[in-house]
């Protein structure tokens, strides 16, 4: 009897052990650090987006709704930013410059928009900077319907090699309604023209009732997006539940599985799904168990950091460090924690000057520099 009881117990315990097993490779602390950080923009609350303008100034979006221009050591408030729905994770979110910014001056802004009432949903606009004012605002996309949920807005944007704008919207806390349904917004990666038009070769343009801007689906809450410097593929990472944060390489029309497959579990320890893989659903390039709560990502390509060249840098909100992923033979072969206890890392980008900038909640923007 006792023996069979053990077997029954084992039967119940095994799946949970399987779900919470740490994924390889284990993260290591570097034995020697040749770089350090220098605070360049102080006193920020939740700096979400960073855009590096040709004149060397930095445009920063604060989740609270403020748009700031940091120029020649001074912080200037930009007037007329879009109205935002600030509940929970909502607010003024990502910033991106048009690839031809110097000619056309377009700045892309993602934010949780309250337009239409009853809560909010992620929107993308483009606008221009005129002195200390945001002008020429054009809303290019707005998720619908609004909900009062303050979570999972996604928000990251990146221009692809095709000149089109990719952006993410999270599942808006409706995992059973949104991510697997291409007729609904949320839990998707989107692709649009720089003026908001839907590309005629988007994967679901001929699907009845589909949201035509959808490029891929089955996502939870993607808050990191970067174009691979060599392949041009859009890399995205997304927050999982408890465990199961993922890096995904985005391909058109593909289903990335949330919530049908995941390496994570519910926060209360219960199972979301028994499946980590199903036919017709993509496996992540890499997954984190335990969750690091990834936010922001960039590839190191400049010659300022010979030790890190080619690595992927990812911010960790929960462990409060910058993670360096070494990628070899199409997999993550090594993980390192950089700048432990720096604070909640909300964003990381390599700027046109070749330096890495790290946005940290409650602190500001740090520049990564060689140790003198």
């Amino acid at each position, binding site marked *: *009897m006792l023996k069979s009881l053990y077997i029954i117990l084992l039967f119940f315990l095994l799946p949970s052990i399987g779900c919470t097993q740490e994924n390889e490779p284990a993260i290591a602390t570097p034995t020697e650090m040749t770089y350090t950080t220098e605070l360049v923009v102080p006193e920020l*609350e*939740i700096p979400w987006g960073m855009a590096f303008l040709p004149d060397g100034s930095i445009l920063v979006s604060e*989740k*609270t709704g403020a748009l700031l221009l940091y120029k020649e050591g001074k912080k200037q408030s930009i007037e007329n930013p879009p109205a935002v729905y*600030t*509940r*929970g994770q*909502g607010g003024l979110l990502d910033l991106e410059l048009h690839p031809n910014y110097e000619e056309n001056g377009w700045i892309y802004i993602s934010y949780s928009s309250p337009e239409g009432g009853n809560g909010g949903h992620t929107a993308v606009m483009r606008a221009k900077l005129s002195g200390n004012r945001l002008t020429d605002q054009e809303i290019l996309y707005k998720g619908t319907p609004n909900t009062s*949920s*303050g*979570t999972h807005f996604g928000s990251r944007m990146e221009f692809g090699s095709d000149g089109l704008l990719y952006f993410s919207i999270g599942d808006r*806390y409706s995992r059973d309604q949104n991510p697997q349904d291409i007729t609904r917004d949320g839990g998707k990666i989107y692709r649009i023209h720089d003026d908001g038009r839907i590309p005629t070769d988007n994967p679901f343009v001929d699907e009845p009732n589909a949201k035509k801007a959808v490029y891929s689906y089955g996502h939870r809450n993607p808050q990191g997006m970067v174009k691979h410097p060599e392949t041009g593929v859009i890399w995205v990472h997304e927050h999982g539940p408890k465990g199961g944060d993922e890096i995904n390489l985005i391909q058109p029309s593909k289903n990335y599985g949330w919530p049908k497959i995941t390496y994570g579990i519910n*926060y*209360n*320890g219960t199972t979301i799904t028994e499946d980590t893989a199903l036919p017709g659903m993509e496996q992540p390039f890499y997954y984190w168990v335990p969750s690091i*709560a990834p936010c922001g990502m960039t590839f190191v390509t400049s010659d300022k950091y010979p030790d890190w060249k080619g690595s992927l840098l990812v911010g960790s909100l*929960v*462990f*409060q460090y910058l993670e360096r992923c070494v990628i070899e033979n199409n997999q993550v072969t090594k993980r390192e924690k950089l700048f432990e206890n720096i*604070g*909640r890392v909300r964003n990381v980008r390599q700027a046109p000057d070749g330096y890495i900038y790290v946005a940290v*909640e*409650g602190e500001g923007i740090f520049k990564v520099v060689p140790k003198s």
Partner: protein
Amino acid sequence: MMTKLISIATTGLFLTITWGGLSSVKEPTKLPIISPQPDPKAESIKRGKLIYDELCMTCHLPSGEGVAPTFPPLAGSDYLMKNLTESIRGIKYGQKGKITVNGKTYDGNMPSMGLNDKEVADVTNYILNTWGNTYKGIITAQQVANIKKQ
């Protein structure tokens, strides 16, 4: 062992049938009209749980245990009970800087969640009366409204 199990199962089955049978022959009784007397505190706690699950649980975890050394515990937190006004201010406007919770120092940064005063009261009532925490009174939206940013 097996016989015992079978006998328990049979008894259960028998009872179910009897019970079902008895209730089916009963005359439908008219239910007295009970005017609902909602307990404001219980209702507030119920609403507070939904807010907690949406916005607080990812860091403070489902049982309020937190994640040392980053996210302080809410279950059995001496700081919370001794610094109620400060705690409510933290939920309302965000909390930054060093605090000591159950002998451990936390030096984090919790952003404001953008809740209205009623929602702050609800989630506070939930936290104060869950996971073994008990609080005799009730936090009201008015009390939250009176707590200003410092």
